[in-house]
């Protein structure tokens, strides 16, 4: 639809027209601001805990475990320099060989959600499936935070 609009505007004499082809789905999925009647509905990105610990794939599990534990966490997200999620160290993996690297111990390809998903509905689905927490990433895989199902509170707008 937007390519046709862009061509139409050029036909109407506009000389500097761009087509943002990925559109608002891409914008919202990146957790960027929005306006409109649904803008106030809490999203997974709003509710995600941004302080979830991270580590590099080359770090040893032992020190990573101690760092996570000191911060009150039982998991750590393995990310690269661009903060792209590579894997997850849950309690089980954090308790494995302390000399292993995070890359060796991590659970690869963890499930991720986009930040524009409604928080309450997502929490309901997670509860139904027995999921406690999921990672929230941008469409290009960069970590935003960790969303736990208890973080989703059903708002009136979402119930409607």
């Amino acid at each position, binding site marked *: *639809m*937007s*390519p*046709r*609009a*862009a*061509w*139409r*505007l*050029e036909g*109407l*004499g*506009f*000389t*500097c*027209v*761009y*087509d*943002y*082809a*990925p*559109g*608002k*789905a*891409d*914008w*919202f999925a*990146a957790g*960027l*601001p*929005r*306006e*409109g*009647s*649904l*803008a106030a509905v809490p999203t997974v990105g709003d509710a995600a805990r941004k302080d979830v610990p991270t580590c590099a794939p080359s770090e040893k599990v032992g020190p990573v475990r101690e760092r996570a534990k000191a911060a009150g966490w039982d998991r750590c997200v393995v990310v690269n320099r661009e903060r792209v999620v590579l894997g997850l160290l849950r309690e089980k993996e954090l308790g494995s060989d302390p000399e292993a690297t995070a890359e060796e111990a991590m659970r690869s390809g963890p499930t991720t959600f986009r930040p524009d998903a409604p928080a309450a509905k997502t929490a309901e689905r997670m509860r139904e499936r027995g999921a406690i927490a999921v990672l929230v990433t941008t469409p290009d895989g960069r970590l935003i935070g960790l969303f736990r199902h208890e973080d989703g509170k059903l708002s009136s707008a979402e119930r409607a």
Partner: protein
Amino acid sequence: MPATIFRDEVRRLAEEEGAQLVEVLPREEYEEAHLPGAINVPLKELDGETAARLRRDAPVIVYCHDYQ
């Protein structure tokens, strides 16, 4: 020929060049959620009269939901 751009360029053009964001979806969809500062000109209503709302001295960025 209109250029296809991506998120980072949208932000840059809006912030640095005062680009105008135009959502071309129907009004109901626009009212639910749109990009900050975007105006709504549904594709079906796009003509010389509705386009007159747009400035000609600044870039215009059109968008819809996704690659549709």
